[in-house]
């Protein structure tokens, strides 16, 4: 093996080993929905452009989505959601930053189904709350699939419901989501 080959091989080896550390799982089209059940009306919207990333090294998690990405059946409802309730102009994004509790890299590399807890800060309408979210994680041949469901109290994020529409909007909405990660990405 000549010197040039050795040179390249060592450098490639270094880079490949660093690849292991740089393992990040990304989903650019995750789904998040919310549902509000109230006596007069049910409200439902879905966002199909949720961004999520898991750091394979330490189990850190980040999720971000544009509030305008939530689509409603009724366009007027979507307009009011953005203009009057969520104030998307002021607070365009909802984010979650946290960490998988009791994390081990095997969760993401070995086939299996796990019920994991993700703890972190959920920020909606500019207001953050610390949340511990129970999540279902499945690793199979297609990749890693995460599903979750948790309640959000509108008051916790300073989303006001005027008394006049109290029978139309629930104080607590059910949020659910589905994320799919395809192996490694830098």
């Amino acid at each position, binding site marked *: 093996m000549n010197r040039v080959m050795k*040179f390249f091989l060592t*450098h490639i080896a*270094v*880079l490949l080993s*660093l690849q292991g*550390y*740089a393992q*990040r799982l990304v989903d650019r089209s995750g789904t998040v929905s919310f549902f509000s059940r109230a006596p007069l009306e049910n409200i439902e919207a879905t966002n199909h*452009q949720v*961004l*999520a*990333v898991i*750091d394979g*090294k330490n189990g*850190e*998690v*980040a*999720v*971000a*989505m*544009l509030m*305008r*990405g939530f689509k409603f*059946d*009724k*366009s*007027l*409802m979507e*307009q*009011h959601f*953005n*203009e*009057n309730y969520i*104030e*998307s*102009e002021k607070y365009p*994004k909802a*984010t979650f*930053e946290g960490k998988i509790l009791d994390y081990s890299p095997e969760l993401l590399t070995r086939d299996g189904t796990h019920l994991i807890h993700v703890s972190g800060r959920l920020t909606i309408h500019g207001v953050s709350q610390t949340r511990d979210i129970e999540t279902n994680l499945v690793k199979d041949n297609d990749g890693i699939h995460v599903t979750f469901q948790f309640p959000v109290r509108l008051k916790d994020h300073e989303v*006001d419901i*005027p008394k*006049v*529409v109290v029978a*139309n909007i629930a104080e607590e909405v059910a949020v659910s989501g589905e994320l799919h990660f395809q192996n490694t990405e*830098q």
Partner: protein
Amino acid sequence: MRSRLTGFLLFISVASLNAQSGLLDSLSPEASAAAPAILFNGTRLINGHSVEVREKGILEFIISHRFGEISSGGYNLYGLDESNVRFALEYAPLNHVYLGIGRSSFEKTYDGFVKVQLMRQLPGRSPVALTLFASTAFKTLREPERDLTFSDRLTYTSQLLLGRKISQRISVQFMPTYIHFNTVREDEVRNDVWAFGIGSRIRLTRRLSLNGEYYYQKEKLSADYFNSFAVGVEIETGGHVFQLQLTNARAMLEKGFIAENTSDFFSGDIRLGFNISRAFQIGK
């Protein structure tokens, strides 16, 4: 050469390590094209139209009411005895097109309009919202002393509605208007009226606004007529928009409130009025 290559390779490996910090920062949702500005809560400013139209598939029902003049005194309960009503049904077959039909109790007039939104205010695309409005009014009030044909009873109105949201809380609008009356009353001296309207909306809270509207006529139909002035509050709740106003205009139709006003706002010929609109999504 070799050391430079080494340096380069080490550099990119270090760079990739650094890219791992700030997990959330690495996620930047594609900035959705900024949404077009919403200037007004509904399709009406006070008496007249605003630049807004409804989205495709929305059906809107509007009831407008104007009482009598407050200056008519206690005997008439300061105008509450008199009642003028207009019902309207409006529909958006397409995203930028709005159609409506209505009927007013004043002179038993039917009206139909077409409203086309040409431009919405969007940073980078257009600084203003521009909408065209055209309406035809058909008066069915029996006037046996005049021999009126079908065509005599028609009046045409066209407006250019130009609006701009100048801040989070304030929107303004200009309404150059042209009205043509096929037939006019005995004391009226012309068939055409050019007018220029200005209006504004000041958002007080997320759901409450203060609106103002004024139409200046270049040349009135009659020297005894007045320009219309209106000021009101607007409350928006879910699918309803409630507007309560004070105005001198009795009619709720463009040709009526712009050009046929016999009440003088500034002499106390003020009327209490309200508009209630309810939007339903019936198409997709």
